[in-house]
C-alpha cells in the first residue's frame, strides 16, 4: 500500500472508531471492543508507515487553499516517532479508560470515546503535517476537540477549568502563533517544513528574536511559563484524559510543534549562529525550577503531576533553545521517555482514585501494601521521570546535559541537576508513604483492594516499557541519526 493511503488510514481510523462509538452507543461491550480494534489497527498502520519509511522525500497534498497554503502531509523521523508514540499509548489508554470509566461510574461513555478517538486523529494530523499551516489547523482542532473531554463532568469546577484551558490555548495560538505564521508566510511565501529551515535572510536579528518569542509562547500547549496555567486547570478531566492527552497527546503536540518549528522552519544551525534562542533557555530553566517547586507544595496528586509535566515539558523547549543537534536529540528522547513515565504516573493516580476515591497524597498512607502493583508501577515511572538509570528517562537528561555543555551553558547543567533532586522530592514521598507509613486506623484500608485488571495492567505495561527503553534507546537514536534529524 502506498504511503499516502496509509497516512489517510491513520487519520480516518480513529474518526471511524469514534463514529462507531456513537452508532453502538447502547452496546457497551461491542462499542469498546470495536474501538479497541480501531486502536490496534491505527497503531499497526503507524508501524507500517514506520517500516516503509526509507528517508525518501514524500509529500501528499490534500487540497490547496491558497498558493503556498495547502493541507498537506509528509513523513519525517520526528513525526513518525510521535505518531507511533500516540497511537501505541492509545491502545493502553483505551483499555485503561474502559476500566476507569466503568470503575469510576462516569457518565456519557460514548460521547467521551467519540471525542477521545477524534482527538487521536488530529494528533495523527499533527504528526504527519507537511507545513506549518496544516500543523496549525490540527493544533487548533485538537484544542477544540479536547474541550468536551476536559469539561466532561459538566460541573461548575469542570467548566471553569475547561474555560481556562480553552482561553489560554486559543489565546496564545491565535494571538501569538498565528501572527508568527502569517508573518513568515508574508515574508517567505511558503510554510513548508524543510530541513535546515526556510527563513533564509528574510528576518533581521531583532525580528528573529520576536519570531522565536511568538512561537515559544504562542505554542501554548508546550506550557512554557507564564502560559502554563491551563495544564493544572485541565486536571478536572477524567484521569484517562489527563493520562493520554495531558501527558502524551496535547502537551506533546505542543513540544513536538516547538521542535518541528525549530528544526524545519528556523533551522537548528541558523538558530545556533544567530543566538536568538538564548533568552528562551533562561525562560525554560525558570519554568523547570518554578514548576517543580510548586509541585512540591501540591497535595492533590493530579495537580502535582500536572506541575511536574510543566517542568518536564520545559526540558523539551530547553532542547530546542539550546539550538544544537544534541539538544534536539535530547528533546526528542524526552518526548518519548516522559510520555511513558508520566502516563504511568497518571494511570496509577487514576487507579488509586478508582480503588479508593482518594485524590490527596496525604490520605494515601499505607495504600502501597494493598495495591502493590500500582505503587510499584508508580515507583518505576517516577524514577524514569527523575532520570535515574536503569530507566529510559536517564537518556534524555543525559543528552540534554551534553547539549548544554556543547552550547557552553554550564548553568543549565546545574539547573537540570537541581530539578532532578526536586523531582525526587515530590515524586518519591508518595511511594514511601504508601509502603512504609501506616494508616490512621488499622481497619481503614481493609475495604480497599487492587482495582480491576483493565485498570492496573496498563500502567504496569507502560512502566515495563519505561524500563525497556533504557536498553533500546540506541535504536531510537540511530533512527533519528540515520534520517538526518540529528547528526
Amino acid at each position, binding site marked *: 500500500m502506498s504511503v499516502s493511503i496509509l497516512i489517510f488510514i491513520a487519520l480516518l481510523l480513529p474518526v471511524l472508531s469514534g463514529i462507531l462509538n456513537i452508532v453502538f452507543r447502547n452496546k457497551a461491550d461491542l462499542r469498546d471492543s470495536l474501538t479497541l480494534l480501531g486502536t490496534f489497527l491505527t497503531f499497526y498502520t503507524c508501524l507500517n508507515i514506520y517500516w516503509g519509511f526509507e528517508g525518501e522525500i514524500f509529500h501528499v497534498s490534500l487540497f490547496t487553499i491558497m498558493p503556498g497554503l495547502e493541507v498537506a502531509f509528509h513523513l519525517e523521523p520526528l513525526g513518525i516517532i510521535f505518531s507511533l508514540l500516540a497511537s501505541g499509548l492509545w491502545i493502553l489508554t483505551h483499555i485503561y479508560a474502559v476500566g476507569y470509566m466503568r470503575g469510576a461510574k462516569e457518565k456519557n461513555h460514548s460521547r467521551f470515546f467519540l471525542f477521545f478517538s477524534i482527538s487521536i486523529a488530529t494528533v495523527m494530523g499533527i504528526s504527519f503535517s507537511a507545513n506549518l499551516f496544516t500543523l496549525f*489547523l490540527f493544533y487548533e482542532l485538537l484544542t477544540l476537540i479536547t474541550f468536551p473531554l476536559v469539561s466532561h463532568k459538566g460541573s461548575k469546577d469542570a467548566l471553569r477549568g475547561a474555560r481556562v484551558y480553552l482561553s489560554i490555548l486559543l*489565546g496564545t495560538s491565535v494571538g501569538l502563533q498565528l501572527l508568527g505564521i502569517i508573518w513568515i508566510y508574508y515574508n517567505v511565501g511558503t510554510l513548508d517544513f524543510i530541513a535546515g529551515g526556510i527563513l533564509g535572510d528574510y528576518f533581521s536579528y531583532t525580528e528573529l528574536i520576536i519570531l522565536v518569542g511568538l512561537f515559544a509562547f504562542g505554542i501554548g500547549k508546550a506550557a512554557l511559563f507564564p502560559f502554563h496555567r491551563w495544564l493544572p486547570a485541565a486536571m478536572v478531566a477524567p484521569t484517562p484524559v489527563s493520562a493520554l492527552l495531558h501527558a502524551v497527546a496535547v502537551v506533546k503536540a505542543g513540544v513536538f510543534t516547538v521542535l518541528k518549528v525549530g528544526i524545519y522552519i528556523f533551522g537548528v544551525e541558523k538558530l545556533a549562529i544567530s543566538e536568538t534562542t538564548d533568552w528562551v533557555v533562561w525562560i525554560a530553566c525558570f519554568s523547570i525550577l518554578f514548576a517543580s517547586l510548586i509541585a512540591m507544595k501540591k497535595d492533590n496528586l493530579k495537580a502535582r503531576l500536572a506541575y511536574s509535566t510543566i517542568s518536564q515539558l520545559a526540558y523539551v523547549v530547553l532542547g530546542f533553545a539550546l539550538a544544537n543537534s544534541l539538544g534536539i536529540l535530547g528533546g526528542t528522547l524526552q518526548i518519548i521517555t516522559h510520555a511513558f513515565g508520566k502516563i504511568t504516573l497518571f494511570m496509577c493516580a487514576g487507579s488509586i482514585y478508582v480503588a479508593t476515591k482518594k485524590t490527596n497524597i496525604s490520605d494515601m498512607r499505607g495504600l502501597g501494601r494493598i495495591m502493590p502493583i500500582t505503587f510499584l508501577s508508580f515507583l518505576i515511572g517516577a524514577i524514569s521521570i527523575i532520570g535515574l538509570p536503569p530507566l529510559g528517562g536517564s537518556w534524555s537528561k543525559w543528552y540534554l546535559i551534553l547539549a548544554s555543555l556543547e552550547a557552553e551553558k554550564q548553568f543549565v547543567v546545574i539547573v537540570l541537576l537541581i530539578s532532578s533532586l526536586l523531582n525526587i522530592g515530590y515524586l518519591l514521598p508518595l511511594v514511601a508513604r504508601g509502603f512504609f507509613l501506616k494508616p490512621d486506623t488499622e481497619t481503614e484500608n481493609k475495604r480497599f483492594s487492587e482495582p480491576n485488571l483493565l485498570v492496573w495492567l496498563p500502567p504496569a505495561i507502560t512502566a515495563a516499557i519505561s524500563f525497556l527503553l533504557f536498553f533500546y534507546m540506541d535504536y531510537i537514536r540511530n533512527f533519528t541519526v540515520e534520517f538526518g534529524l540529528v547528526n
Partner: protein
Amino acid sequence: MASEIKQTVLHLSDHLPILQVVVPMLIAPIIVIFNNRLIAWLLSFFGTIICLIISVALMWATADGSVLTYFLGGWVPPVGIEYRIDAANSILLFLISVISVIVMFFSSNALISEVPKEKHTLFYACFLLCLTGLLGVVATADIFNVFVFLEISSLSTYVLVAQGSYVDRRALSASFNYLIMGTIGATFFVIGIGFIYMATGSLNMMDISERALELGNNRTIQAGFAFIIVGMGLKLAMVPLHIWLPNAYSFAPTVVTCFLAATATKVALYVLIRFVFSVFNYQYGFVSEIFLFLLMPLGIIAMIVGSVIAIFKQNLKKLLAYSSLAQIGYMVLGLSLLSEKGLSASLVHMVNHGFTKAALFMALGAFIINTKNPYLSSIKGLGKAMPLTSAAFVVGGLSLIGVPGTAGFISKWLLIEAVLEAGYWVVAVAILVSSLFAVIYIWKIVEVLYFNEKPENHGELSFYLVSPIWILALFCIFLGLNTGLTVDIANMAAEILF
C-alpha cells in the same frame, strides 16, 4: 446613419445584467395581486432561485476578468444608464442571491412564528423589493441609479424591520430610527452625487473617473467625496454612525435580520469601494488621507469596541449585531489600506462574514422559535435538546472566531497579511485581539448551550428549518477549505478595481 445600426438577434444571455435586477422587481407586484400566502412564497422562492442562476452565470462569465456591460434601453452612456458586471460585483450578486434563496427557504416555516399569516404576502413582496434594491445597487454603473436602488432597498428594509412589532413593539421605534438615520445617509449621498455631477457633468462611473482625472484635485469633488463617505458610513453602520444597527437587527424578524446582516451593510460597503476605486481616483491625496487618518482608526475602534460590547450583551440578537459592527470594522480596515491585498481581503471577508453571520442568526432564530425570546438565559441546555441546530451554531461561531478550516480564518489571514504588507504591526495585533474577544462571546453562548440540563419542553425543529441552517454552516466550512470561489475572484476584482 441608419446603415450602421445592426440587426442584432436578441439572446437571453445578453440581458442577464438587467434580468438579475428586474426579475424580483416584477414578481413583487404579481404576488400582491394574487394575495395568497402559498403562491406568494412559491413565486418568491422561484424568483430568488432564478436570481441565483443568473448570478452564477454572471460570475461564470466574469471570473476570467472580463466585464459585461448592458445599456438600459439601448442608450449609450454617458447619456444612458449602464449596467456593468465585473468580478467585484458578480461575487456580491452571488452572495446576495444565495443568501436570499436560503433565507427564503428558511422563511417558509420560520416566518409563521413572527409575522401573522395575513401579512405574509406583503412581507414577501417587500422582501423581493429589498432584494431588487440590493442587486440593483451592485449591478449598476450609474451613480444616481445607485441612490435610487439604495432607497428602494432601504425603504423596504424599514418595512421589514417594523414587521418585528408583532413580537416586540420596540421594533417600531427601531425601524423609525433606522428610517431617520438611513434617510439622512441617503440624502448626504445624493448631495455628494450632486457635487460630482456639478464638477464633471456626468453620472456614469467610468465617465466620471476619466473626467475627474482631468480636473485633478478639485474642491467640489472633494466635497462630494466627503458627503458620500458620511452617507455610506451611515448606511454601512461604520462606527460612530452605527447606532441604528443593533436595535434594527435585534427587533426585526429573524428572517429579516438574517438577510440584512448578510447583505445590506456589505452592499453599502461595496458602494464605498466602487466610489473610491472606480469613480474617484484613490491616488488623490485627499482620498488616501481620509482613508488612512479617518477610516483606519474608525475600523480599528469598531473592531475592538464592537467585540467588547458584544461580550456583555445578554440579548443574543444584540450580541450578534454588535459582533457585526466589529466585523464591519475588519472590512473597513481592509479597504482603508488602499492596497490590492487589503481590498481583496475586504471583499473576501464580505462574502465569508455574510455566510457566517447568516448561519449564526438563522440558528439563533431556530432557538427563538422554540424559546420565544432571545436571551442567553433562555437557551440553557438547548445543545442537548436541539443538537443539529446547536452544532451548526458552533460551526458558525468557530468561523466567526476564525478557527483554521473555516471561512473566517481565510479572511482574517488575508487581512493580517495585507496589514503586515502595509507595515502596521499594531493593527495586526489588534485584529487578533478582536478575534480573542470573539472567542469570549461565542464561548459564552456555547457553554450555556451545552453545560446545562436538557430542557423538557423543547425539541429539534423540522427538516425545513434545520437544513438551511446547515447549508450555511457547510458554506462556512467549504469556503474555509476551498477558496477558489472567494479568494480567486476577489483577487481578480481587486486587480480590476486598481
